[in-house]
């Protein structure tokens, strides 16, 4: 049965995370101003959260009475803006790849590590064909030797290491085989790079690392080739969209409240000809928000049915990411336009949300890439036929 009701359990989690985000909001401006120039503030639990359980952990422990942890996770992302990382980083993207594709032995050995994912390279953007980083096998020591540079990595500063995807040096046939390796920061040859200075998301670490003859044994090599490593994106992409929608939710609510103070209220009953320009714009932005919400929830529902490692929902994941990225751009731009000059001020978070949101259509696969993936599926094209 088609159903859009929230269970009481769902609502409890949404309230919990909302409360946590609102606590964070008080510190958001300060962190936004300073996080780029100081080392990341919140490596440990933020004092404001002392004694409060982690809602995501609670959900992980039990999703009984809810619409299911995959769905609730997405709903929690959409509740409002997350302005602050207030908890130590959980398991990173790399840890999930390990969980999905590691052997039992590898999970036993590395399962405790919190691992980022190292994919992008400075000259390659989203194009794996351009990857310059390499692995080679050294038969003399039975080790793999890793070299190269990875950038735009979320939270690498706060994690223990990374799963990194590299291309082999050419084999006998001249092929350069993709393979993934687990590396940790304490390894010789691992060099962490400085934080990027960026438009927004100052609260969110994005940096990189270089590999300078890092040597690892065979157990550090994952049976996760390019396709398998990337498949985790199907879980993540809709969540990136959901996070952007949470931010847009705050932006829309703020804008509506401020306009209402000046007498501009949104009436959903009337037709377009009875509306003010501001009202019409808000209705159109909220319509886009709902469109993206429905898309995110549909893929999360499908993921629930098929299981996370299934490839059966990857087009839907790309669709969610594409429409979420578009919503992030249009809604933040549109709200700031409606807020007028006062919206530019650092006295409010609106201008920060405008800056923060812009990454949503870029990372974890830009909107252009998602559209190519969707178009390939609709048109029945393979890679190479449509790029």
């Amino acid at each position, binding site marked *: *049965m*088609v*159903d*859009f*009701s*929230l*269970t009481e359990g*769902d609502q409890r989690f949404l309230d919990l995370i909302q409360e946590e985000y609102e606590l964070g909001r008080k510190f958001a401006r300060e962190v936004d101003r300073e996080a780029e120039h100081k080392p990341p503030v919140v490596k440990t639990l933020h004092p404001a959260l002392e004694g409060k359980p982690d809602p995501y952990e609670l959900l992980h422990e039990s999703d009984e009475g809810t*619409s299911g942890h995959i*769905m609730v996770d997405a*709903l929690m992302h959409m509740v409002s803006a997350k302005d602050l990382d207030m908890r130590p980083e959980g398991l990173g993207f790399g840890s999930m790849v390990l969980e999905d594709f590691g052997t039992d032995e590898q999970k036993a050995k590395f399962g405790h590590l919190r691992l980022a994912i190292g994919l992008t390279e400075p000259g390659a953007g989203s194009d794996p064909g351009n990857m310059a980083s390499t692995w080679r096998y050294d038969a003399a020591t039975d080790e793999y030797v890793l070299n190269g540079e990875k950038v735009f990595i979320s939270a690498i500063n706060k994690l223990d290491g990374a799963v990194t995807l590299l291309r082999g040096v050419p084999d006998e046939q001249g092929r350069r085989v993709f393979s993934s390796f687990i590396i940790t920061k304490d390894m010789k040859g691992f060099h962490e790079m400085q934080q990027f200075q960026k438009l927004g998301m100052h609260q969110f670490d994005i940096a990189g690392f270089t590999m300078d003859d890092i040597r690892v044994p065979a157990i550090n090599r994952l049976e996760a080739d390019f396709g398998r490593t990337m498949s985790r994106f199907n879980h993540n992409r809709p969540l990136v969209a959901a996070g952007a929608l949470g931010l847009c939710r705050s932006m829309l609510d703020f804008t509506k409240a401020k306009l209402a103070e000046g007498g501009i209220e949104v*009436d*959903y*009953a*009337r*037709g*377009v*000809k*009875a509306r003010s320009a501001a009202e019409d714009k808000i*209705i*159109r932005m*909220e*319509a*886009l928000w*709902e*469109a*993206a919400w*429905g*898309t995110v*929830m*549909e893929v999360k*529902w*499908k993921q629930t049915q098929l299981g996370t490692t299934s490839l059966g929902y990857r087009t*839907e994941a790309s*669709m969610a990411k*594409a*429409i979420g990225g578009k919503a992030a751009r249009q809604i933040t731009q549109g709200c700031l336009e409606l807020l007028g000059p006062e919206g530019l001020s650092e006295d409010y978070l609106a201008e920060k949300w405008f800056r923060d949101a812009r990454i949503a259509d870029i990372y974890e696969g830009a909107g*252009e890439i*998602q*559209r*190519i993936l*969707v*178009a390939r599926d*609709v*048109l*029945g*094209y393979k890679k190479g*036929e*449509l790029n």
Partner: protein
Amino acid sequence: MISYELSEEQKIVRSTMSEFANTVLRPETRRLDDNSKIDDGVLSALWATEIIQSQADADGEGRSPVTNAIILEELAAADASLALAVASSMGFVQAIADQGSAKQRELLKAFAGPKFQAAAIAMMEPSFSFDVSKISAKASKAGDEYVLSGKKAYVPLASSCSHFLVIAESDGAADAFIVPRDAAGVKVEAPKGTLGLRALELAEVSFDGVKVPASMRLGEGNGADIQKIVDSARVGLASIMAGLSRGVLEYVVPYTKERIVHGTPLAQKQKVAFDIADMKIDIDAMRWMNWKAAWELESKLPATRTAQLAYTYASQQTMQIADNGLQAFGGHGFVKAHPIEMWYRNARSLSVLEGVAGV
């Protein structure tokens, strides 16, 4: 508990309607547009689907706005005019089934039979300033009657209708009145030529001092909730627009794959491929929005906001999809050898017809 799972019955209805729409309706669509008329054969075939009849049962258990949204999308993927012919009667029947008094619901028996029977909500008015929130038609109470005056426009299949549900302002608020077509003072004009949905024979109906017994005021004593009728109409139209958009996409895909330009299929041009991706994304999004609003209607929850958002999104994106679809065909999009030009007209028409449908 959030779910996108269709019931077994809904799955069957969907595939039955899809099959029916593609095999029976789609081949007729250009001819009906050319003739500006839905002929009796097609109307009978539509009626034989029992879509309307299933809305008319007295206890209301047979009705599901979600199922209706699914049906309208499937019909409209083949022909938006025919989908709206169904949605128009559906809107009438639903409003009475949902909000009518026991006596008023008796009228619905006529819709349960095997013979085609049209009826429509008469909401819009022939004015460039028309808005659903500003109704000019008036109903004034005089003893045990209301006297109804005003002009309604763009009523689907008006000359075939047995009844109209006329929306009129009464005592400062919008209200609805059940008026037989043959009541004194009711005049159905000849159909207007219109940009799109030409087969629907959209026509003006004027009400000149029509006497309506108080018992035919929808809901009798307390009157009706007109906003619910508008909400349902918006979801109905949005579902039809989702279907129309899907029809465009399904027609554009094979064409652009086959058409070779400068040595490569058109579909391999990024501009075209991105448009196609956006069509797919928006069509699915429309559908989920429609389902959500329909689910709220079905659950008797306030649906005004979601219905407005579904309608707004569908109106905006459907126009864009029809526009980009036409563009992908180039000169072939402009000629009647392909249905694209008709869909372009229908897309613009649907998005301004607030009030003539229901789910």
